[in-house]
């Protein structure tokens, strides 16, 4: 259900006012549709006539919902966190040239009337928006916008070259898979290219099952044609006849936008029979998967498209025999976007960034305990500290960063003292984490590492397909041991068992899910051993999160004796006279935490 609004063109042009409203899943969730309605009402009331343009999202989620106003004589200005009722005021003031309340101006070099330029804001300046250059600027559902910014020029160039030359360019670029493993893209293409088979497939992996990772969604919802162009180039390179874009059911808007893009590409002759007059014919279908984290893994993804349900042992690798037994290349959304951009802007623009081992930029979703949650595209090799502190604004006041979780459930935790590590495949690997999809969750001192490890293990356990023994039972046992640690009934040997079991699961699992599931546990165990020992030996949770190890007391100073907590305690463990301080009988208390929630004066304190 997308609320794509088809607005008719304005009746009278006064000052060619353009209003850009971002309609991506996250902005919609933040209320962009209501803002859009109030803007239309306001324009009607003010009798102004303007072109309201739908755009994707810039990736600065903490701004949602934001709008952008532009007209002749005035620079395009961005207003952040717009409430529906404020829309009218903003437009009226803007038309009169008063930009007070704006966040930033997009194009002026040194700001305009006191409003800073977007580039001066650190979260924009430090970014290299190579692949997400159009995000939040062009209308994702109009191919003309994309063509105007040089869209499909990469495809035209590629079709002029031979298939081997295309692969050669990708090899020279040093592009590596952005899905997580960092496998050299050209190598997959070369293997698939060499296979002699009449039917070959190319699949764009948009499953993105990692919780806390939404850069693929942002890219596909804001600039779908770039992804499509990359897919077509890939199809051409290996001589495929059919392509799929694999999207999860939980992201319907992404699938809709891609379908619109495919239809438009077909109308403009970039898809279908004899593309752009060459003899290469190629068609794409958007496949909506029914949602399973394991589908991020190649063979499980192929199984999903074939209507089956489980990964299978590799080899044979998909490049030799994948979808329905035919050679198949599977690339991540971001990788294909990079391919398209490389062909559009040339090699040296790409190789300018990144380290010598892995070139180019990577989009990171910085979430968790940071002021400016968002998607930031930075060259590979940037330090984690710059990403967390300078770009994402560091933790909110009163909190301090304890660790950074990189790579989602298959990644690991990097402690605060290692924040100067560079974000690239090999360095992260050697410190027990993986680049993964690029999800980067900042954990602060109010979170407990055992609880974080337990969360990831329960997530992977729920997602485990149950086919191979180490993952099905091993991860469950890891979860049980962590449960014992969190409830203070574990022993020190259990910690040793955790480490040993984790390593053996990683070594003997069938697919990458089991192969990386113990990473969070092993990395938290490696860097935060003292927290584990505190849970086991002292039976105390330093961050006061693990409910079984937390004791609830009532702070007599703040307790007014209102009796709310006593009424709501399921085991009636709280007693006292009205007006005087109440007391909790810790022997009866089951630590359910209801009293803490109910207490109007915040008198209940976690000990």
């Amino acid at each position, binding site marked *: 259900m997308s609320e794509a609004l088809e607005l008719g063109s304005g009746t009278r042009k006064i000052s060619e006012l353009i209003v850009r409203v971002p309609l991506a899943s996250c902005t919609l969730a933040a209320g962009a549709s209501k803002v859009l309605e109030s803007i239309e009402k306001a324009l009607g009331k003010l009798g102004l006539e303007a072109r309201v343009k739908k755009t994707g999202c810039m990736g600065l989620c903490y701004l949602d919902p934001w709008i952008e106003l532009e007209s002749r004589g005035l620079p395009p200005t961005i207003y952040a966190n717009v409430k529906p009722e404020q829309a009218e005021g903003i437009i009226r003031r803007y038309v009169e040239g008063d930009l007070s309340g704006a966040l930033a101006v997009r194009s002026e070099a040194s700001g305009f009337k006191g409003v800073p330029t977007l580039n001066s804001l650190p979260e924009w300046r430090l970014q290299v928006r190579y692949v997400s250059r159009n995000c939040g600027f062009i209308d994702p559902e109009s191919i003309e916008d994309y063509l105007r910014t040089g869209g499909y020029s990469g495809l035209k160039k590629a079709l002029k070259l031979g298939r081997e030359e295309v692969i050669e360019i990708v090899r020279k670029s040093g592009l590596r898979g952005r899905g997580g493993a960092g496998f050299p893209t050209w190598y997959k293409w070369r293997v698939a290219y060499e296979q002699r088979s009449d039917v070959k497939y190319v699949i764009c992996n948009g499953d993105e099952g990692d919780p806390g990772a939404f850069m693929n969604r942002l890219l596909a919802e804001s600039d779908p044609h770039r992804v499509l162009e990359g897919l077509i180039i890939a199809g051409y390179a290996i001589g495929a006849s059919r392509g799929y874009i694999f999207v999860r059911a939980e992201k319907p808007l992404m699938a809709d936008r891609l379908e619109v893009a495919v239809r438009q590409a077909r109308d403009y002759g970039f898809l279908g029979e004899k593309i752009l007059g060459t003899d290469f014919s190629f068609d794409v279908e958007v496949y909506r998967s029914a949602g399973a984290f394991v589908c991020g893994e190649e063979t499980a993804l192929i199984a999903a498209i074939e209507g089956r349900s489980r990964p299978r*042992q590799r080899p044979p690798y998909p490049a030799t025999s994948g979808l329905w037994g035919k050679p198949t290349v599977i690339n991540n959304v971001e990788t294909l976007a990079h391919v398209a951009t490389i062909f559009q802007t040339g090699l040296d623009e790409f190789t300018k960034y990144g380290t010598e081992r892995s070139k180019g930029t990577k989009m990171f979703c910085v979430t968790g305990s940071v002021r400016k949650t968002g998607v930031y595209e930075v060259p590979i090799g940037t330090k984690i500290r710059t990403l967390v502190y300078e770009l994402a604004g560091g933790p909110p006041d009163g909190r301090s960063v304890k660790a950074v979780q990189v790579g989602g459930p298959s990644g690991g935790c990097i402690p605060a003292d290692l924040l100067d590590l560079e974000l690239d495949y090999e360095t992260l690997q050697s410190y027990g984490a993986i680049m993964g999809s690029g999800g980067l969750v900042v954990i602060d001192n109010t979170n407990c590492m055992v609880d974080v490890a337990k969360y990831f293990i329960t997530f992977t356990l729920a997602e485990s397909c149950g086919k*191979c*023994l*180490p993952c099905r*039972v091993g991860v469950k046992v890891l979860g049980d041991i962590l449960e014992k640690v969190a409830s203070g009934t574990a022993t020190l040997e259990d910690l040793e068992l955790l480490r040993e079991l984790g390593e*053996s699961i990683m070594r*003997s699992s*069938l697919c990458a899910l089991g192969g990386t599931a113990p990473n969070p546990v092993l990395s938290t165990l490696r860097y935060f051993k003292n927290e584990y020992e505190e849970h086991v030996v002292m039976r105390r949770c330093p961050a006061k999160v693990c409910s079984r190890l937390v004791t609830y007391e009532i702070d007599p100073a703040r307790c007014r004796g209102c009796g709310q907590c006593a009424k709501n305690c399921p085991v009636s463990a709280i007693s006292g006279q009205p007006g005087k301080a109440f007391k909790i009988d810790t022997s009866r208390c089951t630590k359910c935490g209801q009293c803490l929630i109910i207490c109007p004066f915040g008198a209940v304190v976690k000990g």
Partner: protein
Amino acid sequence: MVKVYVNNNEVEVSQDALVIDAVEKAGYEVPTLCYLKGLFNEATCRICVVKVNGKVVPSCRFPVFEGARIIVDDSELRRLRRVNLELLLATHEIKCWSCVRKGMCELLSLSKRLGVEGIPVCSECPLRGRSCLVLKGFPCLGPLTVAGCDAECPRRGSPCIGCRGYIMSEDVWVRALEEFYKDNVSLNELKSLISFFWSYLPQNLYRLVREVSNVEY
């Protein structure tokens, strides 16, 4: 035909052979559980893991390639197989005394071969259900002792006195003590028999025995 090296001796196998065929051809034998030749090799149990060029792979499913260096057995592989079997036993409801597959079960032969302690002596004990000593009320530690001795004592009619050590997992103990309780084996005698060889019991088992026999131990 493809040339592969199994533990450094060369073997010639057909192009589309699997690692397990090459290993068998070289005269070695890999423990397998879920592998049925020609019928099922989905590599789910991971007991048949070997190392090919240093990478741990399931031999029942991994295709051979020219010059593959296969290592059939080393300390890490043994550890992996043992951990996997222990995981499997953790999910298996071990009630060998009343199990229909008594003695002929693959788990028993594998655990003996890999040295995993989880299957009790009852799995090898020939006394069919009727003549089982526990059923007759005799204290016999078969359900709690690690298999491997081919149930020498029960085989000759005398109770198992646990000379091979006890099984560590708590659920086996709970089920065994329930069985003892059901056949009203005198728990005092059982307790003194337990203290025969196993004077030290870990805390949880120690508490378990005392709970069931509610006698100061």
